[in-house]
């Protein structure tokens, strides 16, 4: 099982799409590792730098509604994975992106807007980090000397995929 948690990258906008996460011109790469330099290359947000320290150090992304909309490209979760990001927290996800995350043994966690507002209040904290317990369904937000705990739900199937490390081994064993 992968580990979840660490420094947080805040992306404060809804509808962040897969073309922004990894532009189509890089879909000609055959290995996941080759995608690494192109993470979030086409995302334009005030204060956001795809090559910045915050992006490089991030282990968790926090965003808003409909994260990962657009293309079915699993290159989007992969570019996160090879950059050490194994969890995305958002108000909601596009279906294909969410399933791709769990199929890779990673976590796409939905929280209500009010919880996200509290988490986003740490966006200015240089030490903002999160610890995530998938089995317990809890996450703890740390930053600016404060700590707050949130609970979340993921479906039993998605939890099984995270624990199994992904869908291929699970399916080959069960079907």
């Amino acid at each position, binding site marked *: 099982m992968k580990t979840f948690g660490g420094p947080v990258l805040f992306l404060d906008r809804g509808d962040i799409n897969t073309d*922004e996460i990894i532009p189509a011109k890089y879909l000609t790469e055959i290995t*996941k590792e080759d995608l690494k330099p192109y993470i979030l290359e*086409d995302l334009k947000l005030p204060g956001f730098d795809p090559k910045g320290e915050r992006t490089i150090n991030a282990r968790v992304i926090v965003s808003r509604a409909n994260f990962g*909309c657009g293309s*079915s490209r699993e290159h989007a979760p992969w570019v996160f994975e090879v950059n050490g990001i194994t969890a995305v927290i958002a108000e909601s996800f596009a279906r294909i992106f969410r399933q791709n995350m769990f199929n890779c043994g990673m976590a796409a966690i939905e929280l209500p807007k009010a919880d996200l507002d509290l988490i986003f209040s740490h966006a200015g904290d240089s030490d903002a980090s999160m610890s995530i317990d998938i089995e317990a369904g809890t996450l703890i937000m740390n930053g600016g000397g404060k700590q707050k705990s949130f609970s979340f739900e993921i479906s039993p*199937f998605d939890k099984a995929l995270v624990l199994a490390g992904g869908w291929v081994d699970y399916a080959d064993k069960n079907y």
Partner: protein
Amino acid sequence: MGKTTAEKIFDAHLVNEPFPGTKVLRLDAVLCHEITTPIAIDDLIRRDKDRVFDPTKIKAVIDHVTPSKDTKTATQAKILRDWARRHDIKDFFDVGANGVCHALFPERGFIRPGYTVIMGDSHTCTHGAFGAFAAGIGTTDLEVGILKGVCAFRQPKTIKFNVNGTLPKGVYAKDVILHIIGKIGVNGATDRVMEFHGSTINDMTMESRMTLCNMAIEAGGTSGICQPDMTTVDYLWPFIQGDFASKEAALADYSQWRADADAEYDQTIEIDVATLQPTITFGYKPDQVKTISEIAGTPIDQIYIGSCTNGRLEDLRIAAQILKGHKLAPNVRGILSPATPKIQQEAMREGLIDIFMEAGFCVTNPTCGACLGMSNGVLADGEVCASTTNRNFMGRMGKGGMVHLMSPATAAASAIEGKIADPRKYL
């Protein structure tokens, strides 16, 4: 309690429900292209599982970058080609026979009412036009589909769209779906099936129904679904005439997939098309739409006609009808990518290609082309394209470029005027 079309298909294909709310379905068609499949193939080889569940149910095509433009894309094509040969996948479409997957596979009769269809491509929802459940999935789901012939889904709820009225002059399926996306938003149908009903849909050709269902994903929808009827049977007849004694018999069989009158819907939305105008996107999200009267005159640099949304013969006919006798405005360039070789050939026979070329269009081979900026037709920073494709995300057609989504008719009128223009004055 009656059932929706998706519920009927789920019930008929259910393998098991490993966890509450998750249904594993048996697949009738696993579609593959050269961008998302090679990594699945590589991974299967690495896991010592280089097998396919049924080579007759797997269809593959090279369409996104073709003919290959460089070593990387040639390698992707080669991985797919070698795999198709190795596993005796007969329905593999290589250079010369290839075209845009969501136009080519239906044209070959591969999609039937009641089918379950997956592909590592978000616009797989197109195939729901045949009364199928067709969903885009990622490479891992594709890999399991190839290996085991199954895929896991949350049972989607269904939104019913009652689309009624006669389409006004200059208004087409593309305008209807852009209007719907504008109304419900880019996540208005997330985890939902969009089931289309009503007199407008009944009157649509299969091509128009595919345009409609193609963009279900732009509202977050899992699949667009139209109800199978005699139009569906007529389209499929060349492929199914050996299976049924008559068209009426085929219709009777396919009607089992029609939603029940007392089916339960998550939501029902009424659309009256009588007052619709040509509809065009203006921002970087497909739900940012304006009517032609609000956006006419917007400057453009390029016109692109093609893609899985609007690269079919019907689309080329409409655009050519408007372009006939006209030239591209001097400030713009035009690109036409017919979606399949059959469409290209028929367009040549009908003289449509002549009309495009005399207007000054560049005509490419069938390919996904400019739509996602992977091969030809890429925009420069700051350039704007009037496009019949399905996505206007920032950078989609090239870094710093901007795309306005519209019907082939609006694109053709815009080509003549060199700015976004109303097609109705040319009809």
